[in-house]
């Protein structure tokens, strides 16, 4: 399975990664190589096999509905890139 420039640009956009024009071909090549490695999976017969998301049979534990966290806004925002009046700032979003 080979990826071309357009494929890389598409995925880079999905993942919100800026990639220099000059590097795109390089990524396309290394990604294609990785996919070549991955394509080997097709040689295995997995008919009737359940996908395994976690090792061992594990089920979700439930948490009691209690408020356990106190207000730590100042501490958690101490090193945030841009904060004003307790809000995280980002370039204006148009809806």
């Amino acid at each position: 399975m080979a990826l071309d420039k357009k494929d890389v640009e598409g995925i880079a956009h999905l993942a919100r990664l800026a990639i220099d024009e000059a590097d795109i071909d390089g990524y396309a090549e290394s990604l294609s190589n990785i996919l070549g490695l991955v394509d080997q999976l097709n040689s295995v017969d997995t008919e009737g096999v359940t996908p395994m998301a976690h090792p061992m049979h594990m089920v979700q534990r439930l948490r009691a509905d209690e408020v356990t966290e106190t207000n730590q806004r100042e501490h958690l925002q101490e090193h945030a890139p841009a904060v004003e009046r307790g809000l995280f700032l980002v370039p204006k979003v148009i809806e």
Partner: protein
Amino acid sequence: MSNDMHSKTIAELATGLRNGEFSSAELTKSYLERINASNEKLNAFITVTDEQAMKQAQAADQRIAAGDTGILTGIPIAHKDIFCTDGVRTSCASKMLDPFIAPYDARVIENFQNDGAVMLGKTNMDEFAMGSSTETSYYGAVKNPWDLKAVPGGSSGCSAAAVAARIAPGATGTDTGGSIRQPAALCGITGLKPTYGRVSRYGMIAFASSLDQAGPMAATAEDCAMMLQVMAGFDKRDSTSSERDVPDYSVDLNRDIAGMKIGLPKEYFGEGLDSDVAKVIEAAIDEYKKLGAEVVEISLPNTHMAVPTYYVVAPAECSSNLSRMDGVRFGYRCEDPKDLEDLYKRSRGEGFGPEVKRRILIGAYALSSGYYDAYYLKAQRVRNLISEDFKKAFEKVDLIMGPTTPSPAFNLGEKSDDPVSMYLADIYTIAVNLAGLPGMSLPAGFVNERPVGLQLIGNYFEESRLLNAGYKFQQVTDWHQKIPGEFA
């Protein structure tokens, strides 16, 4: 303070502290000096927390004086820079988190603190734990203390290097596809990846959530047992944390292993294994036979599918785990973003290195519409088969053994242009993460003066058996005592 303090194991240091032979303050100071002297050569530490360490050492000395010792009270430990440490930079060796001062402690860190251990600092690693050579770090590559031209392995390469060079008696690592065991092997030390869920992942920055586990790295199995004792245990903040009781990992270290059944997977001894490494491993297996173990050939037929499976599952999970690194609430933000898209793309584009970007892209691709079934679901099915292989094997044997890596450490720069070739070197370790089993690497010898590791794989939650087997091996061999000339 004698000059060979650094050649003592954690067990010996703990005894020394308890007996008042030296103080934690002296011990800590000595290690901090060694770190300082070596950092240029090795580049093992991203952050050295000297002030904090001395304070913790003093507090530890008071506890020891009061007779209130834990297991590692007063022992200096280095932590992989993937564990959140409150008030201390936690970078994951990435530009993206270079400005990140963690506002809380990981559970693992809390455990060490409560036990009275001393934190020396945060060790270098492959960026976001992605790599097998510690060459992808934003802070520069790390050298193998045995041969400064070689890689120390990765991603916990610096934790391994630090222990190998004895600039820390023990260090924490994390293992997603071999990242504790492989660097332990390449640096000639002991490293253990516990069963999935044995150690809490809370505060451990996630790479691949269903594969990651934190574990101890030290000179000996006995030391790893002590560290694991402190690290293991249920954490209600981690849904994947096991509620199973934590046994005493040290009590059965010396149990006789005669009659223990050891399986050697034929797939681990075939093509691709360096013949000199094979000889080292065979010699190691012979030691086990002398100890009375019974060695049996087994088969893990889907071994060759482990690497392809991993390189779908791990990138898929990490592509999503790293989405939170967006320059909004913490970490690196690009300068003058012109709009939201620009903020995201440039913060992430500039903040992440190429290997991380590669894995995010592959992961996003594998999950994308039209490819999810063919890649992600397919990989999860094969994962099930790989797991079944181990289940069947453990019906016949108690432990599985083989080489940790197919060859000793490669040179810096040798594989950095060829990611796939790097990936293939994880062939023996990766399946263990996919199945969630515990695995350990023991130093077993040298090839061309570079260390070689023997891997032991145990059944679920059988860390005690692994440590027992490791301890017995280390009673009859001395590889674990060797220190590279430069750092002796």
